[in-house]
């Protein structure tokens, strides 16, 4: 699918850095037939026509214009948020407004928002915030009546790595921040914040049964969050980040081990539970979002 770049700009404070590496960018696309996508889904981007880099790069959808009243023949679009970490993202950072690139998507299964949820807890590490803004917007959209409370924990190395703070605030979420060097918010990680929050507030402030945790970030962070969730017997959805080749379930390259059956598949998306009876699931089609109980983190 051809997508036209409408905007590609540095975000956050990291513009102080000398090299492009580790900078964060926001890229906005206009794209035929791209009007329906759900939070947590992703696209696979072909950064140029060369065979080096060779594979497409998976990128979460950061924002989808919420069902704009598309005129007939009108174009959809979406935004991504990315960090320059290697060859592919470096090339992306050089793209300019008006350039065309090849995008495959939306792909995968995103977050699913259970009915009657009173509180959504969002834990994000680093660039893991990318899919969380769309998720928060979606929760606000669908849960307006329920007055669902949204609490967001963002962690990053330094204050330069804390993204989207304002987006969350605008939506009306309560935002807590932690940085490893203490340059913004608490010194520590988003997991630390989350843990404190859960521990402090467990009996008094909220009802665990009607709460849900959504997490995205490094594998180790996801594991820590999932462990706490299990301990507190709370629902938890995690968005995984695996190397991918096809993004369509064809190559079986992106698999994650399914938790052995005795653990059960509590609250899992029922579809997914039936679809793949094997001991590996594809992150690209069965995920990237999984019930934390479903998989081996």
């Amino acid at each position, binding site marked *: 699918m051809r997508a036209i770049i409408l905007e590609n700009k540095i975000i956050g404070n990291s513009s102080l850095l000398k090299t492009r590496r580790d900078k964060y960018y926001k890229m906005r696309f206009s794209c035929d037939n791209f009007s329906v996508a759900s939070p947590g889904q992703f696209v696979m981007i*072909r950064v140029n026509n060369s*065979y*080096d*880099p*060779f*594979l*497409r790069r998976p990128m979460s959808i950061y924002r989808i214009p919420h069902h704009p009243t598309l005129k007939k023949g009108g174009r959809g679009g979406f935004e991504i948020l990315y960090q320059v970490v290697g060859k592919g993202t470096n090339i992306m950072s050089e793209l300019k407004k008006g350039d065309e690139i*090849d995008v*495959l998507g939306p792909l995968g299964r995103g977050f699913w928002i259970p009915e009657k949820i009173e509180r959504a807890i969002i834990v994000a590490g680093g660039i893991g915030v990318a899919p969380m803004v769309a998720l928060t917007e979606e929760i606000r959209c669908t849960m307006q009546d329920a007055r669902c409370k949204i609490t967001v924990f963002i962690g990053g190395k330094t204050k330069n790595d804390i993204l989207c703070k304002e987006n969350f605030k605008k939506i009306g979420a309560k935002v807590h921040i932690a940085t490893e060097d203490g340059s913004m918010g608490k010194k520590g990680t988003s997991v630390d914040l989350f843990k404190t929050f859960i521990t402090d507030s467990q009996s008094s402030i909220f009802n665990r049964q009607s709460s849900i945790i959504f997490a995205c970030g490094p594998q180790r962070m996801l594991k820590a969050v999932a462990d706490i969730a299990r301990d507190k017997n709370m629902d938890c959805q995690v968005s995984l980040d*695996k*190397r*991918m*080749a*096809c*993004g*369509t*379930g*064809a*190559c*079986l*390259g*992106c*698999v*994650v*081990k399914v938790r052995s059956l005795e653990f059960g598949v509590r609250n899992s998306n029922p579809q997914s539970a039936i679809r793949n009876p*094997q*001991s*590996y699931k594809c992150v690209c*089609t069965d995920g990237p979002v999984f019930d934390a109980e479903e998989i081996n983190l």
Partner: protein
Amino acid sequence: MGKDIKRVVRKDISKINLSVNIAGILMKNPVMVASGTFGYGEEYAKYIDLNKLGAIVVKGLSLTPREGNPPPRIVETSAGMLNSIGLQNIGIDSFVNDKLPFLEKFDTKVIVNFFGDSIDEYCEVAKKVDSVSGIHGLEMNISCPNKKEGWLEFGTNPDLAFRVVNAVRKNTRLPLIVKLSPNVTDITVIAKAASDAGADAISLINTLSGMVIDIKTRKPKLANIIGGLSGPAIKPVALKMVWQVAKTIKLPIIGVGGIMTYEDAIEFMIAGASAVQIGTANFIDPASSEKIIDGLKLYCGQNSIKDINEIAGSIAI
């Protein structure tokens, strides 16, 4: 390309014969999708009209389901990728029951790629599908180690290759394609063994053995340590092997390895392939195979070729 096509008069293009007959499998064009890169077909049905394909070779199947290797299973390399999927598959029975009905809805040939750990397992799979309607051919992947006889790969030893192909031959009436491993000193010897053993066609190449190391952790980037290299990086190697084998044996040859564009496909046909398989290219562009089919037509039109079969083996040396 769009522009180029227009230069050739449309009605000329429509007269060009693209159909090929590979060992009795009549395909509407010589473009197949390669095993392991197209799932069981449904994964790509949304991105491409399966009716357009010459044939679909499904992910390699074994007698019983296989779990495959632990992840990470893939890693990008320069102009290619390594995979160590480890032949994860749902088993031949699930395929026939759950996946084949979907594929039967399309007007394309379905070829079952399969493998085993022993000659017996190869034969069992072949027997199972011999009379299943909707399966038009078999492709034996002989790059697997023989569990019984000391893990020696079937595809790297001419005697073993002969024995396993010959045994399967006796157990199937379906067209039998044998797919060769490139990790050998002389591929013509293996091709000859397969031919002597009763293969109807040869497809080559499977992936080259390779490895990548993470210099931060000093660990291999694949959990399985070693993986199979595919993509444009290996194209010159595949092309050379197709040419060598085409000179040596009489069977139709199916060229695979790094084909990304119609120009690549034409190279393989000139070297001696009667058909081609599109593998890793599907990951880069799900519409690759369709574009390649259009490109073949374009090439024929521009070069006044009325029948694609004229190209096979037309190398000028």
